């Protein structure tokens, strides 16, 4: 038995795979005060379904993969410890300034167009707790000004007097020469030995990242320090509790890099946003099993619409300088774009486009008007209800009755009346606008990486995804949308496909060729030394998790750019080591090829030089894809799954139609439905629009196809 | 019905009944709204170095050069609040910066007040 857990903001999702391949899922409310409670409740449900008690289930469990929002929440709520930042004198305003763009980082594009509204968020470290140290190292690693130990001692004592209980040290160019940072730690440890103040983390930036960029590296180190206690304390106590209840396996944490590792092999920052990432990355197995090598995953929840892209064998869908919460960091993270388009997104009249939807959301409290909890603004859910796509008595399995009249009233007051149209027409337009906005987001996510949207399969997840899939797929000219099984527990289902992964990276400055002076790169030894060092670290890190060198697979990646360009292109290096000119040529050619493929050959200027900006080694323990168990057909015709009909209005037809409603649980292999039709599942509805059809396969995948171009 | 003044700047209001400018802080009647409000204030020629400290003697002192730049300060004669500042070369005409069309304002008074309430 393997259990995957994703702790989200509202729900804790659990997906368990039994030895015989049978999958069971459970959802419990997230218990923020102690996450393990919600987790164990979900486990209880699964155990009960398997005819076991919790201890019995855990006794048979070989792996638990755990994605948590602990870190994300702690960041957003500013619930972390008081930290101090020690940095190079003269640069103590670097973090508060945040590259000047910081006020916009992490905000939706709509909120970053107006300077009168520029406003930075609460900092993680107050300005008073940023201390300057007289020292300086240049970009080659040469010491320009020595570090004054006495000054370090003084600054540290000042900070401790201010109540600081953890230190972040980020000195300029420490990623090239870390000596001064190490010296700072030595002084801190001399002054405050571990026993005296208890756990007193001192995070050195070069140990967290070896990439250039003092602001991003400071934030990466800061977030690690900020979350240190949450991840190490709470997760180790969870692990202990699980052991106490009979679990003999490891607690594996899901990483936002698309991998996972034991607690000891996880840095706190890797756990942030790991849930959505695990869903995304894990989906690649699902996709591959269906023969797709290019997948875009869409997850529509109550507040946001997340888009992720996975392409087999490619690294373009990584973001190496992502934003976590409001902070630019330097860890390789899977790139997920999010826009404010969810079931709770509020619709309003807009002078230019008629109707705008989101990013403001009614959330779950008060929620959409139809929830009857005091919400007065019309939301996407209200529109869906009015159009007939939701059964008011069957929402969330009947646990949340919906009030259609409230939905109509909200839409009438805010949209229909001001625009002078009917409520139905207003609801139709709301849907059209939000579907197009989601489609545009997917479109941007794919094209900005240099791909063609038409080559992608769209996987639809989340409570809202399958309800809108035909709508946003049309905006992409995608002819097919797949609703996987367990789509409402997206992240948990994806986690099943994860592998143990470590990524090692370092900034370098290696000019591969310089046409001005007609020089070619010759420091092969320098290149190889870095790769070898990374490899040795991988062997050592995985040995600590019980794996031998032969179990490990690796790939070398290079961040490269043409002279003068800012951004780097990442390629998988065609060679592990550079020994000859042939190797050098192979690397340069691989860059040209990737560049041309991504931006078009037109955009490539071979005449200018190329350099390597960073070297990266990705090391993982490969595992077989999870077993897929084919379900036998039920033997019943599709009509047996039919529950009845409902009046629905569609965006493509004037008049309402009596629309067939089916029970998802009763759909079986080979069952085919022609739109318009609604398929109701426990926590989502699949809406098949007119002109589309849907078919269930033996693995629980429901594929919708556009039949014509209407 | 008591007259409701219309706020025109941070510190200036217009009383629509008497069509006069008033200080928003103390209510002091500054002058007719059809005229330049500055005429009803107290003015002061400020050496800019009193506000922006000079770092050293002489030119390019990090303070404005007082032979290039003065700060004209405008005070309310009632409460002394500083309603406006104007950075000018010495002796330059003072801007008539707000010339309200009083009739138009009165005609739209309730609409403007409604716009202000939002």
């Amino acid at each position: 038995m393997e259990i995957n857990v994703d702790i989200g903001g509202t729900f804790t999702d659990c997906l368990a795979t039994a030895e015989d391949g049978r999958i069971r899922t459970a959802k419990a409310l997230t218990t923020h005060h102690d996450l393990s409670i919600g987790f164990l409740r979900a486990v209880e449900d699964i155990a009960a379904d398997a005819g076991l008690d919790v201890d019995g289930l855990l006794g048979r469990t070989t792996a638990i993969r755990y994605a948590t929002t602990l870190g994300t929440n702690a960041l957003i709520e500013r619930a972390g410890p008081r930290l101090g930042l020690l940095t190079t004198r003269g640069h103590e305003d670097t973090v508060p300034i945040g590259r000047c763009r910081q006020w916009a980082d992490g905000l939706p594009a709509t909120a970053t167009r107006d300077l009168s509204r520029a406003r930075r968020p609460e900092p993680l470290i107050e300005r008073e707790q940023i201390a300057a140290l007289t020292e300086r190292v240049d970009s080659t690693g040469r010491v320009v000004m020595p570090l004054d130990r006495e000054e370090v001692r003084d600054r540290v004592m000042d900070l401790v007097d201010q109540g600081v209980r953890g230190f972040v040290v980020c000195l300029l160019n420490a990623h090239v020469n870390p000596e001064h940072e190490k010296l700072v730690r030595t002084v801190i440890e001399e002054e405050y030995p571990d026993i005296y103040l208890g756990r007193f983390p001192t995070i050195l930036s070069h140990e967290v990242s070896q990439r250039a960029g003092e602001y991003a590296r400071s934030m990466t180190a800061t977030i690690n320090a900020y979350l240190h206690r949450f991840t190490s304390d709470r997760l180790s106590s969870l692990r202990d509790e699980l052991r106490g209840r009979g679990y003999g396996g490891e607690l594996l944490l899901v990483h936002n890099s698309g991998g996972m590792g034991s607690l000891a092999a996880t840095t706190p920052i890797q756990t942030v946003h790991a849930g959505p990432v695990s869903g995304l990355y894990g989906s690649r197995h699902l996709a591959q099993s269906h023969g797709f090598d290019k997948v875009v995953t869409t997850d529509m929840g109550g507040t946001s619409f997340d888009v992720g892209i996975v392409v087999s064998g490619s690294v373009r869908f990584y973001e190496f300088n992502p934003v976590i919460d409001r902070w630019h960091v330097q860890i390789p993270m899977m790139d997920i774009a999010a826009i404010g388009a969810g079931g709770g997104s509020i619709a309003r009249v807009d002078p230019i486009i008629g109707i705008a939807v989101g990013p403001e959301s009614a959330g779950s409290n008060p929620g959409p008007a139809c929830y009857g909890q005091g919400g007065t603004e019309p939301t996407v859910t209200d529109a869906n209800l009015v159009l007939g796509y939701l059964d008011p008595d069957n929402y969330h399995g009947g646990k949340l009755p919906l009030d259609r009249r409230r939905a109509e009233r909200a839409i009438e007051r805010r949209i229909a009346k001001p625009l002078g149209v009917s409520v139905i027409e207003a609801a139709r337009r709301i849907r059209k606008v939000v579907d197009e906005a989601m489609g545009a987001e997917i479109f941007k996510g794919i094209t900005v990486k240099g791909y063609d949207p038409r080559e992608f399969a769209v996987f639809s997840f989340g409570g809202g995804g399958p309800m809108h899939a035909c709508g946003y797929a049309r905006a992409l000219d995608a002819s097919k949308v797949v609703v996987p099984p367990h789509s409402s527990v997206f992240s948990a289902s994806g986690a099943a496909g994860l592998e143990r992964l470590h990524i090692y990276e370092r900034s370098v400055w290696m000019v591969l060729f310089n046409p001005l002076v007609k020089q070619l790169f010759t420091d092969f030894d320098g290149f190889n030394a870095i790769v070898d060092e990374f490899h040795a670290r991988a062997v050592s890190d995985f040995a600590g998790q019980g794996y031998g060198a032969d179990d490990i697979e690796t790939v070398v990646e290079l961040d490269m750019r043409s002279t003068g360009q800012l951004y780097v292109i990442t390629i998988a290096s065609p060679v592990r080591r550079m020994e000859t000119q042939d190797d050098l040529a192979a690397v340069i050619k691989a860059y040209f090829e990737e560049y041309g493929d991504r931006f078009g050959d037109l955009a490539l200027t071979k005449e200018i030089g190329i350099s390597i900006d960073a070297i990266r080694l990705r090391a993982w323990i490969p595992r077989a894809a999870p077993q897929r168990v084919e379900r036998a057909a039920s033997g019943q015709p599709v009509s047996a799954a039919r529950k009845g009909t409902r009046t629905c209005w569609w965006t493509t037809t004037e008049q309402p139609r009596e629309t067939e409603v089916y029970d998802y649980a009763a759909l079986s292999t080979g069952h085919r439905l022609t739109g318009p039709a609604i398929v109701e599942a426990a926590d989502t509805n699949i809406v098949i629009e007119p002109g589309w059809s849907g078919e269930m396969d033996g693995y629980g995948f429901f594929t919708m196809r556009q039949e014509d171009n209407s | 019905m008591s007259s409701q003044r219309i706020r025109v700047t941070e510190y200036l209001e217009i009383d629509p009944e008497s069509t006069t400018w008033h200080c928003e802080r103390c209510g002091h009647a500054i002058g007719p709204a059809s005229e330049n409000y500055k005429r009803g204030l107290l003015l002061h020629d400020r050496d800019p170095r009193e506000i922006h400290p000079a770092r050293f003697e002489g030119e390019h002192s990090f303070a404005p050069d007082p032979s290039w730049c003065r700060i004209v300060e405008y005070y309310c004669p009632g409460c002394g609040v500083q309603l406006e500042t104007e950075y000018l070369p010495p002796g330059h005409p003072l801007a008539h910066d707000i010339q309200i069309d009083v009739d138009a304002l009165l005609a739209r008074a309730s609409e403007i007040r409604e716009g202000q309430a939002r």
Partner: protein
Amino acid sequence: MSTAESSTAQFFADLLNNQPVMYGPDPEINAEYRLRPRTEREDEALAAITDPADLSVGLSRVEAVLQSSIEMMQQISASAAAKWGDLIVGIYTKEGDFAVATSSGVNMFSATTSSVPKFIARYWADEPTVGIAEGDVFYHNDANYGGTHNPDHTLLIPLFWKGEHIAWIGAIIHEGENGAAIDPGGFSVRATTKYGEGIRIPPMKIGENYIVRRDVVNLFQNQVRDPMLWLTDIRSKLAASRAVERRLHDFMAERSPELLIATMRSVLETTEAEVRRRIAAWPDGIYRASHFADCTLMEERLFKLSVELEKRGDRLTVRTKGSSPSIDRALNAQAHFTRAMVGNLFMNFLYGDLPRTAGFIAALDFELEPGSIVTADSEQPSSLSLLTMFSLNSALHQAVTKAMYAVPGVAKPMAPWYPQVPTLQYGGLTQHLQVTANVSTEMNAAGGGALHDRDGEHAAGPIFAPVSDWGEMELREAELPLLGLWRRIPADNHGFGKFRGGASVEWAYMLYGSQMFGFGLTSMGGRFPVTGGMFGGYGGSCTPLTRIRPSGGVDAVRQWLLDGGKGLSFEASTMVSSQPIAGEYLVGNPMQPADPRVEGDIWIQRVGGGGGYGDPLERDPEAAMLDLRRGLISPEVATQVYRLVWDEERMEADVEATEAARAEERRARLARGRGYDEFVAAWRADSPPEHLGYLGSWDWADPGAGEG
């Protein structure tokens, strides 16, 4: 008239009018800022839209396509400015009106370049040797034909669909190096005529069938010091434009060309209507402000930028009379740039919720006097017009805030944002033996103006591109021969007030690692502040350039730093006062051409802070105390300006004593303040002081002046 006479008349008409020697800038096209009337095709397209929600679909798609493209362009461009945000991608109607621009980037481009496709349509469409066909690639940089200044390059391709010309697609990037006679990097500080500003490319075709002619590019490259930059970025702009073309083709195939045409026209018209509607809510009247800039590139002179806004009903008329006349310096700005600055203010500070489009300026009226520094004619040098325009912004922002304060609607009354660009310019041979010449990104650290309800943001971006990235010091040092000694916020570098302006930084770079490298700087504010305050708040201070040339060169500096850098104060003025290392210390005008420097040279410059809002005596004492504790203000300013009284030991405000000190200061104001006439009698000068070299009006009889 007889047949013979009319054919003679025709003969002479042809002879004199129809065979121009040169196709110079078209004054009629350049003066256009209203939307062209709807074409028949546009009427047809709009009528074909049955569901208004489709227009929202159209706009959503167009914006996604453009944003995708600009991000790609940023990644593959070589221009330093492009990397950090000085670029844009957009679509124009077939008639040439700039319909939709990317959300990010330099928005004002959307108001200045409509004249370029219009010129092409008028002069080249039917010119047998040129023509407009699918696959054509057009290029331009000459600001006399449109655009802002010569370093900004426009690449345009016509968008066709099934043989019909539907629209134009344009990509604009600030490239930089332009081949000016004396000054590298694109800013021709020392040009006195347009002939000193490097290559000027009027709208021209540089390629067909999507292939750019190599001999044409070679011609361009041969005029400039950075041929690699030009080659790379012509390609990157074309690639970005083609990406837009491809996606719009897909869109038209999926939906219809009518939807695209209708979307563009609809966005223009509805934006214009909405801007008018919002302005109509303001009180009718006339609002005026002036700003004074203190340097004309090669000398220190004071020149005026004057703004008058007349609002009547839904019309807002913008006038600039009283502004300096044009001069033989590269500061002259064309009228379309002036209009674009107004558009920029509206787009980035008032109505950021509306699409970026030429509809903004179409909603306004402009009465700009000819012969002014803000209405340059085509003979004048203008590569640094942006400095004039930025100075204009200070006056503009004040006037607009006064006009809109009473009924701001969605906008927020605020003090002016710091508008200038005191950024390091550099060029030469780097430590990696690579040749480079460009500008750094210090300009992105401009301090934000204070708002009516809170302090301004520190170092939050330039006025012309809301989200701008300063980058990282380590990346700069890895690439360029620089050592960034410091970049920190010094005291008093912002406007004081009830709400203070956002502060900005002081940066210090040493030339380090190359003996063949130059530094330059083009900014204002050495003697006269660049921003004013609002409603009783103060403006920013002055920002002269400090240069240190150590007598012992870089080796002396190295030794001094290795020995602990005794006396290194990390602040310009104390360095100058204490001179901790032997050498030449110069503090002067922040305008220095990009000339070769000596390794070890240290340049220190402040970027300015935003203006303050409201009477400083109304600032919350706790807020002022926090400013003091954080070193944002000096004790001198805390006492003199805010009348703060505090406990030195505990560094805490004494609120009661502060209130008493403030009450006393208010009484002092009443005592020293003079009535208007009395004040004017003592203050008035009938002509400007000689030493200012003053340019602009100085007229006490002008109705815009308070009567003297």
